[in-house]
Protein backbone atom coordinates (compact mmCIF):
# COMPACT_ATOMS: atom_id res chain seq x y z
CA UNK A 1 0.00 0.00 0.00
CA UNK A 2 1.20 3.35 -0.84
CA UNK A 3 2.32 5.08 2.37
CA UNK A 4 1.14 8.37 1.02
CA UNK A 5 -2.35 7.04 0.66
CA UNK A 6 -2.05 5.55 4.12
CA UNK A 7 -1.11 8.86 5.56
CA UNK A 8 -3.94 10.52 3.74
CA UNK A 9 -6.37 7.96 5.08
CA UNK A 10 -5.08 8.53 8.60
CA UNK A 11 -5.38 12.23 8.29
CA UNK A 12 -8.82 11.86 6.85
CA UNK A 13 -9.77 9.58 9.69
CA UNK A 14 -8.50 12.08 12.22
CA UNK A 15 -10.36 14.86 10.57
CA UNK A 16 -13.48 12.74 10.48
CA UNK A 17 -13.06 11.91 14.12
CA UNK A 18 -12.60 15.55 14.99
CA UNK A 19 -15.66 16.53 13.04
CA UNK A 20 -17.60 13.72 14.65
CA UNK A 21 -16.48 14.70 18.08
CA UNK A 22 -17.10 18.31 17.28
CA UNK A 23 -20.60 17.45 16.32
CA UNK A 24 -21.33 15.12 19.22
CA UNK A 25 -19.50 16.84 22.15
CA UNK A 26 -21.24 19.84 23.57
CA UNK A 27 -19.41 22.22 25.94
CA UNK A 28 -21.23 24.57 28.33
CA UNK A 29 -19.89 28.12 28.42
CA UNK A 30 -19.47 29.84 31.81
CA UNK A 31 -22.56 31.95 31.22
CA UNK A 32 -24.85 29.16 30.14
CA UNK A 33 -26.27 25.88 31.18
CA UNK A 34 -26.67 22.83 28.93
CA UNK A 35 -29.90 20.98 29.26
CA UNK A 36 -29.61 17.46 28.00
CA UNK A 37 -32.73 15.49 27.46
CA UNK A 38 -33.47 12.28 25.64
CA UNK A 39 -32.35 8.69 25.66
CA UNK A 40 -30.21 7.34 28.42
CA UNK A 41 -29.96 10.54 30.40
CA UNK A 42 -28.81 9.51 33.83
CA UNK A 43 -29.88 11.63 36.63
CA UNK A 44 -27.38 11.44 39.42
CA UNK A 45 -29.00 13.70 41.96
CA UNK A 46 -31.31 11.70 44.10
CA UNK A 47 -33.56 14.46 45.45
CA UNK A 48 -34.44 15.72 42.01
CA UNK A 49 -34.36 12.47 40.20
CA UNK A 50 -38.02 11.80 40.29
CA UNK A 51 -39.01 15.13 38.90
CA UNK A 52 -36.15 16.20 36.78
CA UNK A 53 -36.30 14.45 33.41
CA UNK A 54 -33.24 16.13 31.97
CA UNK A 55 -29.68 16.72 32.74
CA UNK A 56 -28.18 20.05 33.59
CA UNK A 57 -24.58 20.61 32.64
CA UNK A 58 -22.71 23.76 33.66
CA UNK A 59 -19.07 24.56 33.07
CA UNK A 60 -18.11 21.31 31.30
CA UNK A 61 -18.75 19.28 28.23
CA UNK A 62 -20.91 16.26 27.47
CA UNK A 63 -21.32 13.89 24.63
CA UNK A 64 -24.65 14.10 22.99
CA UNK A 65 -25.85 11.30 20.84
CA UNK A 66 -27.55 12.80 17.87
CA UNK A 67 -31.02 11.66 17.25
CA UNK A 68 -31.37 10.21 20.71
CA UNK A 69 -30.47 13.11 22.80
CA UNK A 70 -30.82 16.84 22.50
CA UNK A 71 -28.85 19.58 24.11
CA UNK A 72 -30.30 23.03 24.69
CA UNK A 73 -28.52 26.07 26.02
CA UNK A 74 -29.98 28.35 28.65
CA UNK A 75 -28.22 31.68 29.05
CA UNK A 76 -27.30 32.64 32.55
CA UNK A 77 -26.48 36.18 31.51
CA UNK A 78 -27.80 39.20 33.26
CA UNK A 79 -30.79 40.72 31.66
CA UNK A 80 -32.23 44.14 32.12
CA UNK A 81 -35.84 45.09 31.78
CA UNK A 82 -36.98 48.68 31.58
CA UNK A 83 -40.08 49.48 33.50
CA UNK A 84 -42.36 52.47 33.17
CA UNK A 85 -45.27 52.29 35.56
CA UNK A 86 -47.95 54.74 36.51
CA UNK A 87 -48.77 54.14 40.13
CA UNK A 88 -50.01 55.78 43.31
CA UNK A 89 -47.93 56.21 46.39
CA UNK A 90 -48.93 55.52 49.96
CA UNK A 91 -49.99 59.18 50.28
CA UNK A 92 -52.27 58.88 47.23
CA UNK A 93 -50.05 60.89 44.95
CA UNK A 94 -49.98 59.76 41.34
CA UNK A 95 -46.45 59.23 40.08
CA UNK A 96 -44.89 57.69 37.04
CA UNK A 97 -41.93 55.52 37.96
CA UNK A 98 -39.30 54.59 35.49
CA UNK A 99 -37.05 51.81 36.69
CA UNK A 100 -34.81 49.04 35.47
CA UNK A 101 -34.70 45.59 36.97
CA UNK A 102 -31.54 43.57 36.64
CA UNK A 103 -32.13 39.87 36.91
CA UNK A 104 -30.70 36.58 35.80
CA UNK A 105 -31.39 32.89 35.95
CA UNK A 106 -30.27 31.49 39.25
CA UNK A 107 -27.03 29.58 39.24
CA UNK A 108 -28.23 26.65 41.22
CA UNK A 109 -29.71 23.64 39.45
CA UNK A 110 -33.16 24.15 40.92
CA UNK A 111 -33.37 27.65 39.56
CA UNK A 112 -31.98 26.53 36.24
CA UNK A 113 -34.54 23.74 36.08
CA UNK A 114 -37.37 26.11 36.95
CA UNK A 115 -36.23 28.67 34.43
CA UNK A 116 -35.61 26.04 31.78
CA UNK A 117 -39.10 24.73 32.10
CA UNK A 118 -40.57 28.21 31.75
CA UNK A 119 -38.34 30.19 29.49
CA UNK A 120 -36.23 27.83 27.36
CA UNK A 121 -38.04 28.55 24.17
CA UNK A 122 -38.83 32.18 24.91
CA UNK A 123 -35.67 33.49 26.31
CA UNK A 124 -35.98 36.61 24.16
CA UNK A 125 -39.45 37.23 25.50
CA UNK A 126 -38.35 36.92 29.05
CA UNK A 127 -38.07 40.69 29.37
CA UNK A 128 -41.72 41.21 28.48
CA UNK A 129 -42.78 38.73 31.08
CA UNK A 130 -40.57 40.28 33.68
CA UNK A 131 -41.85 43.71 32.70
CA UNK A 132 -45.40 42.67 33.25
CA UNK A 133 -44.51 40.93 36.49
CA UNK A 134 -42.50 43.78 37.90
CA UNK A 135 -44.99 46.39 36.77
CA UNK A 136 -47.45 44.79 39.11
CA UNK A 137 -44.89 44.36 41.80
CA UNK A 138 -43.74 47.94 41.43
CA UNK A 139 -47.28 49.18 41.87
CA UNK A 140 -47.55 47.25 45.08
CA UNK A 141 -44.14 48.44 46.19
CA UNK A 142 -44.83 52.07 45.43
CA UNK A 143 -48.25 51.79 46.98
CA UNK A 144 -46.62 50.67 50.19
CA UNK A 145 -44.10 53.45 50.29
CA UNK A 146 -44.19 57.19 50.58
CA UNK A 147 -42.27 59.31 48.15
CA UNK A 148 -39.87 60.28 50.93
CA UNK A 149 -39.16 56.61 51.66
CA UNK A 150 -38.64 55.88 47.98
CA UNK A 151 -36.23 58.72 47.68
CA UNK A 152 -34.38 58.40 50.92
CA UNK A 153 -34.68 54.84 52.15
CA UNK A 154 -33.12 52.38 49.76
CA UNK A 155 -33.32 49.63 52.35
CA UNK A 156 -37.06 49.97 52.56
CA UNK A 157 -37.31 49.80 48.79
CA UNK A 158 -35.21 46.69 48.42
CA UNK A 159 -36.98 45.11 51.34
CA UNK A 160 -40.31 45.77 49.68
CA UNK A 161 -39.03 44.33 46.42
CA UNK A 162 -37.92 41.18 48.13
CA UNK A 163 -41.09 40.83 50.10
CA UNK A 164 -43.31 41.17 47.08
CA UNK A 165 -41.27 39.26 44.55
CA UNK A 166 -39.38 36.57 46.43
CA UNK A 167 -41.82 33.73 45.96
CA UNK A 168 -42.51 34.46 42.34
CA UNK A 169 -38.83 34.78 41.56
CA UNK A 170 -38.30 31.36 43.12
CA UNK A 171 -41.08 29.97 41.01
CA UNK A 172 -39.51 31.40 37.90
CA UNK A 173 -35.99 30.40 38.84
CA UNK A 174 -34.78 33.97 38.59
CA UNK A 175 -32.65 36.10 40.80
CA UNK A 176 -33.09 39.84 41.05
CA UNK A 177 -29.68 41.44 41.19
CA UNK A 178 -31.06 44.91 41.58
CA UNK A 179 -33.98 47.12 40.90
CA UNK A 180 -33.07 50.65 40.07
CA UNK A 181 -35.66 53.38 40.15
CA UNK A 182 -34.38 55.76 37.55
CA UNK A 183 -36.94 58.48 37.71
CA UNK A 184 -40.06 59.37 39.58
CA UNK A 185 -42.17 61.68 37.49
CA UNK A 186 -44.33 63.63 39.83
CA UNK A 187 -47.26 65.33 38.14
CA UNK A 188 -48.33 67.18 41.29
CA UNK A 189 -44.94 68.80 41.89
CA UNK A 190 -44.70 67.14 45.30
CA UNK A 191 -41.05 66.32 45.09
CA UNK A 192 -40.19 69.76 43.84
CA UNK A 193 -42.06 71.36 46.73
CA UNK A 194 -40.59 68.81 49.10
CA UNK A 195 -37.18 70.04 48.30
CA UNK A 196 -38.00 73.72 48.45
CA UNK A 197 -37.78 74.30 52.23
CA UNK A 198 -34.55 72.48 52.37
CA UNK A 199 -33.34 74.29 49.30
CA UNK A 200 -34.41 77.58 50.83
CA UNK A 201 -32.75 76.71 54.11
CA UNK A 202 -29.62 75.69 52.29
CA UNK A 203 -29.74 78.85 50.22
CA UNK A 204 -30.30 80.92 53.34
CA UNK A 205 -27.48 79.27 55.19
CA UNK A 206 -25.35 79.66 52.13
CA UNK A 207 -26.17 83.35 51.97
CA UNK A 208 -25.57 83.71 55.69
CA UNK A 209 -22.28 81.96 55.40
CA UNK A 210 -21.41 84.01 52.37
CA UNK A 211 -22.35 87.22 54.17
CA UNK A 212 -20.39 86.20 57.23
CA UNK A 213 -17.39 85.27 55.18
CA UNK A 214 -17.80 88.45 53.22
CA UNK A 215 -18.00 90.42 56.45
CA UNK A 216 -14.95 88.70 57.85
CA UNK A 217 -13.16 89.20 54.60
CA UNK A 218 -14.15 92.86 54.54
CA UNK A 219 -13.03 93.30 58.12
CA UNK A 220 -9.79 91.61 57.38
CA UNK A 221 -9.41 93.72 54.28
CA UNK A 222 -10.15 96.88 56.18
CA UNK A 223 -7.74 95.95 58.93
CA UNK A 224 -5.20 95.16 56.30
CA UNK A 225 -5.95 98.41 54.51
CA UNK A 226 -5.61 100.35 57.77
CA UNK A 227 -2.34 98.67 58.53
CA UNK A 228 -1.25 99.26 54.99
CA UNK A 229 -2.18 102.93 55.29
CA UNK A 230 -0.29 103.10 58.56
CA UNK A 231 2.72 101.51 56.95
CA UNK A 232 2.44 103.87 53.99
CA UNK A 233 2.18 106.81 56.36
CA UNK A 234 5.23 105.66 58.31
CA UNK A 235 7.08 105.16 55.11
CA UNK A 236 6.10 108.53 53.72
CA UNK A 237 7.03 110.25 56.94
CA UNK A 238 10.41 108.61 56.86
CA UNK A 239 10.78 109.38 53.19
CA UNK A 240 9.85 113.00 53.81
CA UNK A 241 12.37 113.16 56.66
CA UNK A 242 15.08 111.71 54.48
CA UNK A 243 14.07 113.97 51.61
CA UNK A 244 14.25 116.95 53.95
CA UNK A 245 17.72 115.93 55.00
CA UNK A 246 18.70 115.49 51.40
CA UNK A 247 17.23 118.87 50.51
CA UNK A 248 18.99 120.44 53.44
CA UNK A 249 22.27 118.96 52.42
CA UNK A 250 21.69 119.91 48.81
CA UNK A 251 20.76 123.47 49.79
CA UNK A 252 23.81 123.65 51.96
CA UNK A 253 25.90 122.38 49.12
CA UNK A 254 24.19 124.79 46.74
CA UNK A 255 24.82 127.67 49.10
CA UNK A 256 28.47 126.87 49.59
CA UNK A 257 29.29 128.15 46.12
CA UNK A 258 27.71 131.60 46.54
CA UNK A 259 28.99 131.66 50.10
CA UNK A 260 32.53 131.14 48.94
CA UNK A 261 31.97 133.69 46.23
CA UNK A 262 30.63 136.16 48.74
CA UNK A 263 33.53 135.50 51.05
CA UNK A 264 35.94 136.04 48.21
CA UNK A 265 34.12 139.17 47.16
CA UNK A 266 34.18 140.32 50.76
CA UNK A 267 37.92 139.88 50.76
CA UNK A 268 38.12 141.84 47.53
CA UNK A 269 35.96 144.57 48.98
CA UNK A 270 38.09 144.67 52.10
CA UNK A 271 41.20 145.00 50.00
CA UNK A 272 39.58 147.63 47.80
CA UNK A 273 38.46 149.51 50.85
CA UNK A 274 41.93 149.36 52.17
CA UNK A 275 43.27 150.67 48.87
CA UNK A 276 40.70 153.43 48.84
CA UNK A 277 41.63 154.37 52.37
CA UNK A 278 45.23 154.51 51.40
CA UNK A 279 44.37 156.63 48.40
CA UNK A 280 42.29 158.87 50.61
CA UNK A 281 45.14 159.12 53.05
CA UNK A 282 47.45 159.94 50.20
CA UNK A 283 45.07 162.58 48.93
CA UNK A 284 44.76 163.96 52.43
CA UNK A 285 48.46 164.04 52.78
CA UNK A 286 48.72 165.81 49.50
CA UNK A 287 46.05 168.24 50.58
CA UNK A 288 47.81 168.78 53.83
CA UNK A 289 51.07 169.46 52.21
CA UNK A 290 49.82 171.48 49.28
CA UNK A 291 46.83 173.37 50.65
CA UNK A 292 46.55 173.31 54.34
CA UNK A 293 50.09 173.99 55.33
CA UNK A 294 50.36 177.14 53.20
CA UNK A 295 46.96 178.17 54.46
CA UNK A 296 48.07 177.55 57.99
CA UNK A 297 51.12 179.55 57.39
CA UNK A 298 49.09 182.39 56.06
CA UNK A 299 46.62 182.08 58.89
CA UNK A 300 49.42 182.00 61.35
CA UNK A 301 50.84 185.08 59.80
CA UNK A 302 47.51 186.80 59.96
CA UNK A 303 46.76 185.64 63.45
CA UNK A 304 50.13 186.57 64.74
CA UNK A 305 49.89 190.04 63.39
CA UNK A 306 46.33 190.35 64.74
CA UNK A 307 47.47 189.17 68.12
CA UNK A 308 50.19 191.66 68.13
CA UNK A 309 47.78 194.41 67.32
CA UNK A 310 45.34 193.24 69.92
CA UNK A 311 48.02 192.97 72.57
CA UNK A 312 49.10 196.42 71.81
CA UNK A 313 45.53 197.66 72.13
CA UNK A 314 45.03 195.74 75.37
CA UNK A 315 48.16 197.06 76.83
CA UNK A 316 47.10 200.53 75.95
CA UNK A 317 43.66 200.02 77.48
CA UNK A 318 45.13 198.47 80.58
CA UNK A 319 47.38 201.36 80.99
CA UNK A 320 44.42 203.72 80.74
CA UNK A 321 42.41 201.64 83.15
CA UNK A 322 45.22 201.53 85.60
CA UNK A 323 45.49 205.19 85.41
CA UNK A 324 41.76 205.66 85.99
CA UNK A 325 41.85 203.20 88.85
CA UNK A 326 44.61 204.86 90.56
CA UNK A 327 42.82 208.14 90.30
CA UNK A 328 39.62 206.65 91.70
CA UNK A 329 41.51 205.03 94.56
CA UNK A 330 42.94 208.28 95.46
CA UNK A 331 39.52 209.92 95.51
CA UNK A 332 38.04 207.08 97.57
CA UNK A 333 40.77 207.28 100.15
CA UNK A 334 40.06 210.87 100.55
CA UNK A 335 36.32 210.36 101.05
CA UNK A 336 36.82 207.40 103.36
CA UNK A 337 39.05 209.29 105.64
CA UNK A 338 36.49 212.02 105.96
CA UNK A 339 33.71 209.52 106.65
CA UNK A 340 35.69 207.75 109.30
CA UNK A 341 36.34 210.94 111.07
CA UNK A 342 32.67 211.75 111.03
CA UNK A 343 31.80 208.31 112.30
CA UNK A 344 34.22 208.61 115.13
CA UNK A 345 32.69 211.85 116.15
CA UNK A 346 29.17 210.49 116.00
CA UNK A 347 30.11 207.43 118.02
CA UNK A 348 31.64 209.50 120.71
CA UNK A 349 28.60 211.66 120.88
CA UNK A 350 26.25 208.65 121.10
CA UNK A 351 28.19 207.08 123.91
CA UNK A 352 28.10 210.24 125.91
CA UNK A 353 24.41 210.54 125.45
CA UNK A 354 23.80 206.91 126.39
CA UNK A 355 25.77 207.31 129.58
CA UNK A 356 23.72 210.35 130.52
CA UNK A 357 20.48 208.57 129.84
CA UNK A 358 21.47 205.58 131.88
CA UNK A 359 22.38 207.64 134.82
CA UNK A 360 19.08 209.48 134.66
CA UNK A 361 17.11 206.20 134.37
CA UNK A 362 18.79 204.69 137.33
CA UNK A 363 18.11 207.70 139.44
CA UNK A 364 14.50 207.67 138.41
CA UNK A 365 14.17 203.99 139.12
CA UNK A 366 15.51 204.40 142.57
CA UNK A 367 13.14 207.20 143.20
CA UNK A 368 10.21 205.25 141.83
CA UNK A 369 11.09 202.30 143.93
CA UNK A 370 11.25 204.32 147.06
CA UNK A 371 8.01 206.03 146.23
CA UNK A 372 6.35 202.66 145.46
CA UNK A 373 7.44 201.23 148.76
CA UNK A 374 6.10 204.22 150.52
CA UNK A 375 2.87 204.01 148.64
CA UNK A 376 2.54 200.36 149.35
CA UNK A 377 3.05 200.89 153.03
CA UNK A 378 0.55 203.64 152.96
CA UNK A 379 -1.91 201.56 151.02
CA UNK A 380 -1.50 198.70 153.43
CA UNK A 381 -2.01 200.85 156.33
CA UNK A 382 -4.98 202.37 154.67
CA UNK A 383 -6.40 198.98 153.77
CA UNK A 384 -5.97 197.78 157.29
CA UNK A 385 -7.64 200.83 158.55
CA UNK A 386 -10.46 200.37 156.07
CA UNK A 387 -10.76 196.76 156.93
CA UNK A 388 -10.97 197.59 160.54
CA UNK A 389 -13.53 200.23 159.76
CA UNK A 390 -15.49 197.83 157.58
CA UNK A 391 -15.30 195.20 160.24
CA UNK A 392 -16.53 197.57 162.79
CA UNK A 393 -19.20 198.76 160.46
CA UNK A 394 -20.23 195.18 159.63
CA UNK A 395 -20.41 194.33 163.29
CA UNK A 396 -22.48 197.39 163.87
CA UNK A 397 -24.74 196.50 161.00
CA UNK A 398 -24.98 193.01 162.24
CA UNK A 399 -25.99 194.27 165.54
CA UNK A 400 -28.42 196.57 163.86
CA UNK A 401 -29.85 193.71 161.88
CA UNK A 402 -30.06 191.66 164.96
CA UNK A 403 -31.83 194.42 166.69
CA UNK A 404 -34.04 194.92 163.68
CA UNK A 405 -34.78 191.27 163.59
CA UNK A 406 -35.72 191.39 167.12
CA UNK A 407 -37.79 194.36 166.44
CA UNK A 408 -39.32 192.58 163.44
CA UNK A 409 -40.21 189.76 165.54
CA UNK A 410 -42.03 192.06 167.80
CA UNK A 411 -43.46 194.51 165.34
CA UNK A 412 -43.13 193.73 161.79
CA UNK A 413 -45.23 196.52 160.57
CA UNK A 414 -43.21 199.14 162.20
CA UNK A 415 -39.97 197.72 161.05
CA UNK A 416 -41.08 197.40 157.51
CA UNK A 417 -42.50 200.85 157.51
CA UNK A 418 -39.27 202.13 158.84
CA UNK A 419 -37.32 200.24 156.28
CA UNK A 420 -39.52 201.60 153.57
CA UNK A 421 -39.19 205.01 154.90
CA UNK A 422 -35.44 204.64 154.90
CA UNK A 423 -35.42 203.34 151.47
CA UNK A 424 -38.07 205.43 149.97
CA UNK A 425 -35.79 207.64 147.86
CA UNK A 426 -34.26 204.57 146.30
CA UNK A 427 -37.65 203.14 145.54
CA UNK A 428 -38.79 206.34 143.92
CA UNK A 429 -35.55 206.37 141.94
CA UNK A 430 -36.19 202.85 140.82
CA UNK A 431 -39.70 203.80 139.81
CA UNK A 432 -38.40 206.80 137.94
CA UNK A 433 -35.99 204.52 136.09
CA UNK A 434 -38.90 203.16 134.20
CA UNK A 435 -39.07 206.51 132.53
CA UNK A 436 -35.41 207.03 132.29
CA UNK A 437 -35.07 205.07 129.15
CA UNK A 438 -37.92 206.88 127.42
CA UNK A 439 -36.71 209.41 124.83
CA UNK A 440 -39.99 210.95 123.83
CA UNK A 441 -43.03 210.50 125.94
CA UNK A 442 -46.33 211.77 124.75
CA UNK A 443 -48.68 212.41 127.62
CA UNK A 444 -52.26 212.58 126.45
CA UNK A 445 -53.88 214.12 129.42
CA UNK A 446 -51.31 216.68 130.49
CA UNK A 447 -49.76 217.04 133.90
CA UNK A 448 -52.43 214.91 135.45
CA UNK A 449 -51.35 212.07 133.30
CA UNK A 450 -47.81 212.39 134.45
CA UNK A 451 -48.80 212.42 138.06
CA UNK A 452 -51.02 209.44 137.43
CA UNK A 453 -48.26 207.59 135.94
CA UNK A 454 -45.98 208.42 138.81
CA UNK A 455 -48.63 207.46 141.23
CA UNK A 456 -48.94 204.13 139.47
CA UNK A 457 -45.26 203.68 139.48
CA UNK A 458 -45.12 204.45 143.09
CA UNK A 459 -48.07 202.34 143.80
CA UNK A 460 -46.04 199.61 142.29
CA UNK A 461 -43.73 200.35 145.16
CA UNK A 462 -46.70 200.27 147.41
CA UNK A 463 -47.69 197.04 145.99
CA UNK A 464 -44.18 195.89 146.63
CA UNK A 465 -44.76 197.00 150.15
CA UNK A 466 -47.87 194.93 150.31
CA UNK A 467 -46.00 192.02 148.88
CA UNK A 468 -43.29 192.51 151.45
CA UNK A 469 -45.86 192.55 154.10
CA UNK A 470 -47.40 189.35 152.88
CA UNK A 471 -44.01 187.82 152.80
CA UNK A 472 -43.36 188.88 156.30
CA UNK A 473 -46.56 187.37 157.37
CA UNK A 474 -45.75 184.18 155.67
CA UNK A 475 -42.40 184.17 157.31
CA UNK A 476 -43.94 184.96 160.66
CA UNK A 477 -46.21 182.01 160.30
CA UNK A 478 -43.49 179.68 159.32
CA UNK A 479 -41.19 181.22 161.91
CA UNK A 480 -43.59 180.25 164.62
CA UNK A 481 -43.37 176.64 163.78
CA UNK A 482 -39.59 176.85 163.10
CA UNK A 483 -37.21 178.83 165.23
CA UNK A 484 -37.67 182.56 164.67
CA UNK A 485 -34.24 183.27 166.22
CA UNK A 486 -32.31 181.92 163.27
CA UNK A 487 -31.68 184.75 160.89
CA UNK A 488 -30.26 182.54 158.16
CA UNK A 489 -33.50 182.76 156.22
CA UNK A 490 -34.26 186.30 157.14
CA UNK A 491 -31.05 187.93 155.97
CA UNK A 492 -31.45 187.00 152.37
CA UNK A 493 -35.01 188.31 152.48
CA UNK A 494 -33.87 191.66 153.62
CA UNK A 495 -31.08 191.57 151.15
CA UNK A 496 -33.68 190.98 148.45
CA UNK A 497 -35.67 193.87 149.70
CA UNK A 498 -32.73 196.04 149.45
Amino acid at each position, binding site marked *: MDPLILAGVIVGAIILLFILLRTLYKVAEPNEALLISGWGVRVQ*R*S*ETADSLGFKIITGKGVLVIPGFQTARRLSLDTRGANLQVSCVTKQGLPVTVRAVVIYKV*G*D*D*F*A*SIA*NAARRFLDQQDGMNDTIHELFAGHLRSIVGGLTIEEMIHNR*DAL*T*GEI*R*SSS*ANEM*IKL*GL*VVDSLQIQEIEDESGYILNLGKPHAAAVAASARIAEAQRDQEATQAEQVAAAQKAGAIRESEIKQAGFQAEVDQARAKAGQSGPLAEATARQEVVVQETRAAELEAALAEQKLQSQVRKPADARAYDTRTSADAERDAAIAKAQAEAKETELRAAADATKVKTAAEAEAQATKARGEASAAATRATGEAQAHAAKAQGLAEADAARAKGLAEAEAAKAKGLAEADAIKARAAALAENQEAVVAQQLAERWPEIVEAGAKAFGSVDHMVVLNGADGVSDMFAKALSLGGTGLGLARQLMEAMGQTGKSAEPETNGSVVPTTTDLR
Partner: protein
Amino acid sequence: MPDVPVIGSRGRVTGTIGPGLVGEVLLSVRGGTEAFYAYPADGQERFENGTQVLVVDFESPRTVYVQRWLPLG
Protein backbone atom coordinates in the same frame (compact mmCIF):
# COMPACT_ATOMS: atom_id res chain seq x y z
CA MET B 1 -28.04 16.28 48.67
CA PRO B 2 -28.06 19.89 47.58
CA ASP B 3 -25.90 20.97 44.74
CA VAL B 4 -24.04 23.37 47.03
CA PRO B 5 -23.26 22.94 50.73
CA VAL B 6 -24.81 26.13 52.12
CA ILE B 7 -25.84 24.66 55.44
CA GLY B 8 -23.24 25.50 58.01
CA SER B 9 -21.82 28.34 55.99
CA ARG B 10 -21.49 31.81 57.43
CA GLY B 11 -23.01 34.80 55.74
CA ARG B 12 -23.70 38.47 56.14
CA VAL B 13 -27.17 39.98 56.26
CA THR B 14 -27.83 42.36 53.36
CA GLY B 15 -31.56 42.71 53.96
CA THR B 16 -33.11 42.89 57.36
CA ILE B 17 -34.28 39.49 58.55
CA GLY B 18 -37.24 39.36 60.87
CA PRO B 19 -40.74 38.13 61.39
CA GLY B 20 -42.95 39.26 58.52
CA LEU B 21 -39.98 40.24 56.42
CA VAL B 22 -38.09 38.50 53.62
CA GLY B 23 -34.47 39.01 54.39
CA GLU B 24 -31.38 38.55 52.33
CA VAL B 25 -28.10 36.88 53.11
CA LEU B 26 -24.98 37.00 51.01
CA LEU B 27 -23.23 33.65 50.96
CA SER B 28 -20.08 32.36 49.36
CA VAL B 29 -21.05 29.51 47.06
CA ARG B 30 -19.74 28.02 43.83
CA GLY B 31 -16.62 30.13 43.94
CA GLY B 32 -18.60 33.33 43.99
CA THR B 33 -21.14 35.08 46.16
CA GLU B 34 -24.84 34.75 45.80
CA ALA B 35 -27.74 36.27 47.59
CA PHE B 36 -30.28 34.01 49.23
CA TYR B 37 -33.65 34.79 50.69
CA ALA B 38 -33.40 34.40 54.43
CA TYR B 39 -35.73 33.80 57.33
CA PRO B 40 -34.98 33.55 61.01
CA ALA B 41 -34.60 29.97 62.13
CA ASP B 42 -36.62 30.46 65.29
CA GLY B 43 -39.18 32.65 63.53
CA GLN B 44 -38.96 35.55 65.96
CA GLU B 45 -35.45 36.86 65.95
CA ARG B 46 -34.50 39.95 63.99
CA PHE B 47 -31.20 40.55 62.30
CA GLU B 48 -30.24 43.93 61.04
CA ASN B 49 -28.06 44.62 58.05
CA GLY B 50 -24.46 43.66 58.51
CA THR B 51 -25.11 41.04 61.16
CA GLN B 52 -23.19 37.80 60.80
CA VAL B 53 -25.45 34.78 60.71
CA LEU B 54 -25.09 31.02 60.44
CA VAL B 55 -27.14 29.09 57.87
CA VAL B 56 -28.81 26.28 59.70
CA ASP B 57 -31.27 25.13 57.09
CA PHE B 58 -31.80 25.35 53.37
CA GLU B 59 -34.83 25.31 51.22
CA SER B 60 -34.44 24.88 47.51
CA PRO B 61 -33.80 26.70 45.47
CA ARG B 62 -32.73 29.92 47.24
CA THR B 63 -34.11 30.09 50.72
CA VAL B 64 -32.07 29.73 53.87
CA TYR B 65 -32.88 29.82 57.55
CA VAL B 66 -30.37 31.49 59.74
CA GLN B 67 -29.55 32.06 63.36
CA ARG B 68 -27.15 34.39 65.11
CA TRP B 69 -23.51 33.61 64.59
CA LEU B 70 -21.78 33.06 67.90
CA PRO B 71 -18.04 33.40 67.41
CA LEU B 72 -15.93 30.97 69.37
CA GLY B 73 -14.03 32.33 72.31
